[in-house]
């Protein structure tokens, strides 16, 4: 390998390789990641607070139910900003990942009907969401291997 054949390190699963991202991409992605972390915390807080032994007053319950939604909307806005300004190859990898994630969710939702006819229970939306995220990550990994 000559000095001109510069090796690209394989990205560290699952967060990619920030050394290969532009400074703007790193900033935008970090903002999105922090908001997603905040959403995770808000989601857990809502689960606990709205549970059997949680808050009883209506107003705080409503606020707690809306908190994860508000944080997730902010995270989605941050992700769109990240995509719009991203390095073009990184954008392609992210979009292909989104395609796989979307297809995973669609496949599950539209196919579960037949599985129910075979005896499966009703589908849990949390499971669908989780598998969509898994499909998203897997799709990014496949795209990264294709293009790098």
């Amino acid at each position, binding site marked *: 390998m000559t000095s*001109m054949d510069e090796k690209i390190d394989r990205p560290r699963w699952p967060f990619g*390789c920030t050394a290969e991202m532009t400074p703007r991409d790193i900033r935008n992605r970090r903002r999105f990641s922090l908001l997603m972390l905040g959403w995770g915390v808000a989601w857990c807080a809502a689960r606990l607070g709205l549970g059997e032994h949680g808050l009883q007053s209506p107003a705080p319950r409503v606020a707690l139910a809306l908190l994860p939604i508000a944080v997730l909307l902010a995270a989605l806005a941050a992700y769109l900003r990240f995509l719009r300004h991203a390095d073009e*190859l*990184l954008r392609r990898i992210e979009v292909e990942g989104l395609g796989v994630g979307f297809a995973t969710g669609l496949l599950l939702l539209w196919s579960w009907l037949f599985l129910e006819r075979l005896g499966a229970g009703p589908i849990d939306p949390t499971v669908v969401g989780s598998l969509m995220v898994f499909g998203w990550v897997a799709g990014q990994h496949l795209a990264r291997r294709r293009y790098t």
Partner: protein
Amino acid sequence: MTNRLRVLRAEREWSQADLAGRLGVSRQTVNAIERGKYDPSLPLAFRIASTFGQPIEAIFQPDAAQSAP
């Protein structure tokens, strides 16, 4: 699509990181273009041509399969 990016970069003794900085893209993108794994967008192709002071056709050539009608 084939390209002469690596040759042109070597003539100027630029690293991939140097070229990536000049083009405003990641080193991963420059590496993928040089290895033929990724074809740049038109705006990026124009920026590459402008950076090297050559027409796009002198840097990028379609594959035989792509150029066939």
